């Protein structure tokens, strides 16, 4: 397995601010890799380090085995899809897409053809003569994608690419990006603060907080077996149980997490039971999310719509499988 990108204790400081703090990371070739985290967590800076817009303050960055420090972005066979798409307003769509080929001196008819092929690949054939200002947000995003891919980069970077799109379009693009990546076989690295997006698209996810990677693994791992309270809360918004509460349930005095979909209103059959007070119920369609309160803490659960739900203030029994309880590390 070839390593496409390797971070070796990479730090990026801005004065006293540690945007990236001694990060170690390996991304394999052909992976669809997600960098997930809240704003200011360092994920975008890491992306920019790979692109070449930032240089590490310390540590080493390797791209396909070669040291990348000191190499300008225009010398890296790495391309970026920017958050605001950054399409050149004074050029047509075709000229935008062919830009990378133009600056490398590719001959005109050849780059025209390649650009048109790229546009067809992103399902915008024939849009070449338009100007970016005439396109919708979704179309601009595809043009940005085509413009990056036409250069046949070894690594494609995407900086919050779907943030500006509405829900339906976003879901459609998520599917298309996944299919595209599989068919092209190149490494996709994308940055997002939307954990749902990361989980649904990526082969592996790195969760960032405060300039460090808190956990990296497959979506199932990160979601089902979060390492810390932060990950449990950020990815999928789990119930986080204080040591007091955990002790009540399992006897162990540790922090633990419990997915809401594993908690429901029960009577007797399950071996995990907790007495709580109803706070609210939120209708979500086929399911209803219930919020309860126990020991000063909120616990959320999920029930099938149709099941009878007690009034707010009523005392209920929360039921869950004890083995679903996942222990967290001590650090936040």
């Amino acid at each position, binding site marked *: 397995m070839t390593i496409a990108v390797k971070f070796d204790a990479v730090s990026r400081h801005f004065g006293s601010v540690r945007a990236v703090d001694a990060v170690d990371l390996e991304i394999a070739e052909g992976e669809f890799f997600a960098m997930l985290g809240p704003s200011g967590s360092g994920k975008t800076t890491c992306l920019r380090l790979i692109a070449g817009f930032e240089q590490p303050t310390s540590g080493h960055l390797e791209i396909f085995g070669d040291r990348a420090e000191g190499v300008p972005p225009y010398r890296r066979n790495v391309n970026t899809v920017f958050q605001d798409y950054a399409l050149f307003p*004074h050029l047509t769509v075709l000229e935008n897409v062919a830009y990378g080929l133009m600056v490398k001196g590719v001959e005109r008819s050849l780059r025209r053809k390649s650009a048109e092929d790229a546009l067809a690949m992103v399902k915008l054939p024939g849009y070449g003569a338009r100007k970016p200002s005439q396109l919708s947000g979704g179309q601009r995003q595809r043009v940005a994608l085509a413009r990056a891919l036409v250069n046949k980069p070894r690594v494609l970077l995407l900086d919050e690419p779907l943030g500006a799109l509405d829900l339906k379009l976003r879901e459609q693009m998520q599917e298309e990006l996944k299919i595209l990546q599989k068919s092209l076989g190149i490494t996709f690295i994308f940055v997002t603060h939307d954990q749902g997006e990361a989980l649904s698209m990526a082969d592996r996810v790195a969760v960032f907080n405060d300039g460090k990677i808190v956990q990296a693994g497959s979506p199932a791992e990160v979601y089902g077996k979060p390492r810390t309270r932060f990950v449990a809360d950020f990815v999928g918004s789990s119930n986080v149980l204080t040591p007091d509460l955990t002790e009540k349930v399992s006897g162990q005095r540790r922090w633990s997490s419990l997915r809401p979909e594993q908690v429901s209103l029960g009577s007797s059959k399950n071996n995990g039971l907790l007495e709580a007070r109803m706070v609210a119920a939120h209708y979500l369609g086929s399911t209803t999310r219930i919020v309860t309160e126990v020991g000063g803490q909120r616990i959320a659960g999920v029930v099938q719509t149709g099941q009878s739900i007690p009034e707010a203030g009523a005392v209920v029994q929360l039921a869950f499988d004890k083995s679903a309880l996942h222990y967290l590390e001590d650090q936040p």
Partner: protein
Amino acid sequence: MRSDKESQAPVWLKLAAAGGLAFLHLPILLIFLYAFTTEDKSYVFPPPGLTTQWFAIAWNRPDVREALWLSVKVASIATIIAMVLGTMLAAAVSRSKFFGRETISLLVILPIALPGIITGISLRSAFGLMDIPFSIWTVILGHATFCIVVVYNNAVARFRRVSGSLIEASMDLGADGFQTFRHVILPNISTALLAGGMLAFALSFDEVIVTTFTSGQQQTLPIWMLEELVRPRQRPVTNVVAIAVVIVTLIPILAAFYLTRDGDQVAGQGK
């Protein structure tokens, strides 16, 4: 409804505003009228008769031609210097944060913020101290200094609107700094540069205060007009020249206005 009442201004306000605007424009229109008068010894109103003879006479007077030519030369050279220097400065100030950036922004405003007489007498005293004789170059030196400000204002306003990610995108796609400048930056600031250049030209063409202090025997067109104002010869000829100056300065300004209309205002409003 309240909004209906809001959108109609009271009559007296409309009259005051319209009147004010008319007041601003009438005097210049009057000059147009006076350029056609047959009376050349006084400013009598109404003009006794109308003729177009003065246009030909003005064109044929050698002192007028020389003054016009000098003004064109000075304005052109000052504008070129200003465009190069102003753009360089604007690029540096708008794209990077560095120590002293605020001070520089203030410094650049000075040639236009301080009255022309200060710029004029300062240059004059400097020339005196260093024993530099007056020439077309001393005039150009003075003009270029405030022209730099005009170009800078326009360029900086536009630079700030060019999204930084465009430059990054260009580099990401394989273009180095020079290629990025040529293919991305320049096309996006060209209209602002042009506008700045035209404003600078108009400003230089019309400038009289600094010029009186920095010129010896050289007569630009405004200097010529000043002479005529103090010691009039053929008054209608002066009026014809006045019209010419108005047109030559107004056209670049209107063009500059249309070039930069989308978004930012025409920068460098203060003279």
